[in-house]
């Protein structure tokens, strides 16, 4: 596993993160925005693993383990919230939930 | 010609893949015939016995028929996913076989006509010996849900969608119980490699996990039958229910691919049961040498057991199925994990 490959893995992580950020800006469906957030989390996981390989330190793997677990918990709660707001307003457009605007 | 070590490994793996792939396809077509005949005898009728002596050519007739049928795509169906779903189902079914060992390791004899990197080489009878083998199986069975969900959704049909959702909900509910039943085996063997789990059962038949860890075996039997959508858990694809479940709209070769995926999953479940619980390629009586033949025999016995179940037991209703999976199997598996952990610690102290 050569060092350039690890650098390219970090670049891949960056590209995926940027795509996730653009997705969060552009998409109008709540579930798609949520999926772009999951993509960003995965890019961060890749960065952790690449650095763990670079330094030979296993703590990166443990952190990825925890990020996986917390992402699962967050996805469950987030989707439950999405279900309940859909039940309330029957739409999944992010711009429709604006009753708290002045 | 001299090959680098990497190319040697790749060449040996390619040969193993070809052999195993063809053996699986042969076993699949044999299974379709054997199932129909054995089920028929259990139901006091004859099965197919016209095509060829004793109906042996029936799988070939089925194959030819399916090949020439018209391939229909429903209007409004998403063409890409409609075609991709059977392919995904078959790919995940075959991927699981890559980590199932069917023997120990063989050392090639020195015959003199083979290239010198093959002479006397020790070959492990497994396509890929991962050190996280059991977890890989669990991962591939999680991916198997997608073929069904995609097939049910892409056909643009309410009934297939409900059938697909039901089937995938059943699959991932019982996957949890399946994974928990593996945990106690991993604890006793101390490793995720399937070879190590098989070798922890070496010795005598009393060391087999089916006897030493009977609750895990019972949970595995039920959960594996539900995972492969076999009776008594085949409500999502029963003809009297939602037409044919998620594969209603499929015809001809795509239907054949979905059936192939189901049978290959069944074969993988039998191979796993033979390896993880029945001692794999060890015979059971000390003194008899290990051989892949014992493994194949146990796997075939398990396949017969699946057919036997189908001929004997009525199917579960869907809410009974989900209740059983979550409220009975998962607590039993978890309780056994605690007991097994206690026993392992007690034996170590």
């Amino acid at each position, binding site marked *: *596993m050569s*060092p350039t*490959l690890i650098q*390219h*893995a970090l*670049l891949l992580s*960056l*590209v995926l*993160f*940027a*795509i996730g950020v*653009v997705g969060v*800006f552009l*998409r*109008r*469906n709540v*579930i*798609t925005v949520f*999926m*772009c957030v*999951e*993509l960003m989390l*995965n890019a961060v*996981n*890749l960065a952790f*693993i*690449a650095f*763990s*390989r670079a*330094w030979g330190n*296993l*703590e990166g*793997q443990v952190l*990825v383990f*925890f990020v*996986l*677990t*917390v*992402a*699962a918990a967050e*996805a469950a*709660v987030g*989707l*439950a*919230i999405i*279900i309940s707001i859909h*039940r309330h307003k029957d739409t*999944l457009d992010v711009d429709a939930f604006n009753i708290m605007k002045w | 010609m001299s090959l*680098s070590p*990497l190319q040697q490994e790749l060449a040996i793996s390619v040969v193993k893949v070809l052999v195993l792939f063809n053996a699986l396809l042969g076993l699949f077509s044999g299974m379709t015939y054997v199932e129909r005949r054995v089920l028929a005898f259990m139901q006091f009728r004859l099965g197919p016995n016209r095509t060829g002596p004793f109906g042996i050519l029936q799988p070939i007739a089925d194959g030819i028929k399916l090949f020439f049928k018209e391939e229909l795509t429903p209007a409004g169906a998403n063409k890409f996913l409609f075609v991709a779903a059977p392919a995904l189902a078959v790919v995940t079914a075959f991927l699981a076989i890559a980590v199932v060992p069917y023997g120990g390791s063989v050392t090639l004899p020195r015959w003199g006509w083979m290239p010198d990197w093959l002479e006397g080489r020790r070959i492990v009878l497994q396509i890929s010996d*991962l050190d*996280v083998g059991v*977890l890989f199986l669990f*991962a*591939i069975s*999680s991916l198997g849900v997608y073929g069904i*969900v995609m097939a049910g959704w892409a056909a643009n049909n309410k009934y297939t*969608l409900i059938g697909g*959702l039901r089937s995938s909900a059943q699959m*991932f509910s019982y996957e949890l119980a399946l994974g928990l039943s593996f945990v106690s085996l991993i604890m006793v063997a101390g490793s995720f490699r399937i070879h190590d789990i098989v070798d922890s059962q070496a010795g005598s038949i009393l060391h087999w996990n089916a006897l030493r860890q009977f609750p895990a075996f019972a949970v595995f039997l039920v959960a594996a039958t539900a995972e492969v959508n076999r009776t008594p858990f085949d409500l999502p694809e029963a003809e009297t229910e939602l037409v044919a479940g998620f594969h209603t709209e499929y015809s001809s070769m795509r239907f054949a691919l979905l059936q192939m995926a189901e049978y290959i999953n069944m074969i993988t479940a039998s191979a796993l049961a033979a390896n993880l619980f029945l001692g794999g390629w060890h015979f059971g009586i000390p003194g008899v040498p290990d051989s892949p033949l014992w493994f194949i025999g146990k796997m075939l016995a398990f396949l017969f057991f699946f057919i036997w179940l189908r001929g004997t037991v009525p199917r579960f209703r869907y809410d009974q199925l989900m209740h059983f999976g979550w409220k009975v199997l998962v607590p039993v598996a978890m309780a056994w994990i605690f007991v097994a952990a206690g026993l392992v610690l007690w034996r170590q102290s």
Partner: protein
Amino acid sequence: MSLELFHAILFYAFAAAAVAAALVMVSQRNPTYSAFALIVTLVSLAGVFGLLGSTFIAVLQIVVYAGAIMVLFLFVLMLLNVRAEDRPPGGGRVFMLVAIALGAVLAGEVGSVLVAARTPLARPFDASARAVAHLLFEAQYLYVFEATSILILASLVGAIALAKRDPGP
């Protein structure tokens, strides 16, 4: 062909699949197609993790992310019967270009730092399940592990409480 070249070919194949699927995910209008594209990204990333030596985390990624979280997403999408989204009314073009430009600026900034820094090392390590488990259960992460299990319990209870229908009068 050497092992290095083989690793490099596999890595670029997985990386290309991950980026292509991520672009498909962001650009598709129907959220169900985006979900399937995200699954492809997750599985490709698991391949990259395996190439970087962490087979345990790679398999866990498939089991947890691609096998459980995305199934949850797909179920919610199919049960809520989500249709493809429509174009936003007016002024969508400019907003899209500005968003893509901002993403490119982010990538460019961090990328320039990454490229200018010295290339990382590649120290060999043993990322087997046993080594990771030692850190999790015997070394300093035991407390965090137990706290995470309480977190999962809280999210379980919360998800059920949020998504329950109110029983009628």
